[in-house]
């Protein structure tokens, strides 16, 4: 059940929202989609779901195109949350799940499980407009996964949630992954992707600028971060060979270096100059990679 995008392009007039995107999302994996607003994430999802046809290219799931006959196997949490404000949670979920091919009885049973799980069983008889935004989002999530889809597409699932709810939702997402589902999710929170995904893709202006497994991406990036906390001035370190950038921190400096050997050099240079409280060589964060590749910061 591989989800495959081959040279997918989507144009609106002259503007290319997605430009020549090729991806392969393996089965039973969690795939992260990163990108600023307008990078083409939502458009890509809409094409995967068949809501829009690509201008060029192919999208297949397990070798077949995705259309309405496969919709019971797909779960979708749109970026813009949307439920009927005047409808009770139960009626709402029953309606939406039946459209995904579920029987009413089964929906009610599953709904009970999910509401129990999110510790909100009393919401079944409430109208959606009476719930807080965070709780509406939980209901929305339930609507996306209640029919036990094999492919789950979550557009910004954690945005707008408090940390407790983020943890609850993360746990649920990981559980769905453990159960053998393929999950594609987008976020503009790098740490969420870093934490949860094996494979990822960073989009910018419709094209993937980084694509592959998290480990490979980090390894091939080459650069590492060196964090030094010391009591003496360190700013001159940026002049050294192999140091690509430097950022002053309250307790010292953070350097970006081209490899481990540079760290050795740096250590030699500062050794004996004063007391060093911290000398730490770190893997680059996704944020660093993104800034480097896209030439712009995210948030």
């Amino acid at each position: 059940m591989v989800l495959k995008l081959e040279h997918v392009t989507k144009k609106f007039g002259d503007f290319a929202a997605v430009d020549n995107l090729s991806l392969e999302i393996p089965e039973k994996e969690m795939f992260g989609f990163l990108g600023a607003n307008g990078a083409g994430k939502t458009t890509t999802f809409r094409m995967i779901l068949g809501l829009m046809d690509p201008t060029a290219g192919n999208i297949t799931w397990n070798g077949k195109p995705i259309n309405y006959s496969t919709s019971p196997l797909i779960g979708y949490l749109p970026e813009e949350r949307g439920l009927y404000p005047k409808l009770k949670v139960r009626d709402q979920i029953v309606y939406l799940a039946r459209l995904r091919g579920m029987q009413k009885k089964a929906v009610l049973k599953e709904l009970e499980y999910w509401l129990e799980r999110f510790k909100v069983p009393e919401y079944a008889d409430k109208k959606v407009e009476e719930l807080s935004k965070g709780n509406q989002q939980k209901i929305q999530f339930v609507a996306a996964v209640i029919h036990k889809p094999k492919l789950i597409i979550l557009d910004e699932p954690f945005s707008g949630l408090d940390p407790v709810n983020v943890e609850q939702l993360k746990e649920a997402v990981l559980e769905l992954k453990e159960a053998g589902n393929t999950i594609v999710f987008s976020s503009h929170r790098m740490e969420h992707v870093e934490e949860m995904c094996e494979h990822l893709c960073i989009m910018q202006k419709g094209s993937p600028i980084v694509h592959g497994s998290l480990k490979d991406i980090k390894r091939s990036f080459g650069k590492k971060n060196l964090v030094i906390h010391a009591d003496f001035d360190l700013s001159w370190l940026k002049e050294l060979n192999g140091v690509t950038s430097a950022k002053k921190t309250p307790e010292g400096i953070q350097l970006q270096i081209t490899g481990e050997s540079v760290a050795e050099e740096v250590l030699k240079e500062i050794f004996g100059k004063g007391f060093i409280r911290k000398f730490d060589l770190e893997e680059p964060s996704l944020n660093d990679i993104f800034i480097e590749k896209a030439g712009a910061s995210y948030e």
Partner: protein
Amino acid sequence: MNNFFIILFHTYLSKLKTKQFIITTIITAALMVGLAYLPKLIESFDKDNTERIAVIDETGQLFEPFKKQIATVNTDVKVVRYTGNNEEADKKVKDGKFDGVLELNLTSENLPAASYRAMSIANTSVPGDIEASLQQMKTMMASQQLKLTQEQLGKLYEPVKLDKKALEKDAKTEEELNQARGLVYVLLFVIYFAVIMYANMIAMEVATEKSSRVMEILISSVSPIKQMFAKILGIGLLSLTQLAVILLAGYFSIKQNLKTMEGGFFESFGFGNIPVGTIVYAVIFFILGYFLYATLAAFLGSLVSRIEDVQQMITPMTLLIVAGFMMAMFGLGQPESTFIKVTSFIPFFAPMLMFLRVGMLNLPLWEAALSIGIMLATIIALAIFGARVYRGGVLMYGKSNSYKDIKKALQMTKQ
């Protein structure tokens, strides 16, 4: 169950259960019942309505014949011989003892003349009756003076005989035409209101789903086209339910009251015996008109992002319906004019204008069939085009709400 029917019944049932729907239906049905009982109601208010008129007859010979005459015209008018002078009589009117004062005189030619004074002469029926009675008396007196025999008099007043006969077979007589006009008039109103109301409801429904963003989930499970038609049919079913309740309430209360209103308002409006054909055509044209405008409303509704903008978007459509209705009102008086004939084949006006023509005239079947065919073709064309706009429109969010968006919406889904 098929997704199509899930949406259809969800739309139908969830709307059916709303307070708004139940209340509007009850109020309208109550209005229909009220209307049927209206003549009775007016009658009961009018019970104690005898007009007392003081008659000052200076000649002494006019009062008796006048009293006899007026009794045949209007039994509610009670005349009393009054012997006082004018001022006294006027005062009694002001005090409310009498409703009016009538002074009878003879002219120099020995014919009756009179003057009538009352607090207000807004009510024309009493002066009118008095005038008619006096006219009758004058005729009699004048003919006596001329020494005309009863026979001569009869000849003089015999109405001329105009035999109207339509050459077309089955053409409606003048009386039938008037009756048809009443029924068509009422049904035109029903079509007009229903089409406006339910087309509005469709546009609102689509815009609500879009603005609440539930649309994106819906269209990821069911194709927009299926969804659009399920919605149109669901609301259509709702409209038929509502109309059935209202019309049945109206029908039964009118039927109950029919005896008391023989020759009255309802009979002259053609409710005495309702031609089945007209009703069948009304239903057909209502359904066609509904589908035509509902399809239009659905795709217009899909273009707006906020509910507030719906009205603005569908105003041109509403104006089209209003224009059709205005033409129909004009057509009621001249159903045979070329203008009405031509416009009854234009699909946006046809639901009202062709109905008007089949209701009032005896049209060859092909004319109605052609108009229905044109409408069906337009509905299909609109549905195909509308579905494409709808598919892109529901994914579009932005602040602009113009017809340029139609182009943008088509682009969204273009390959």
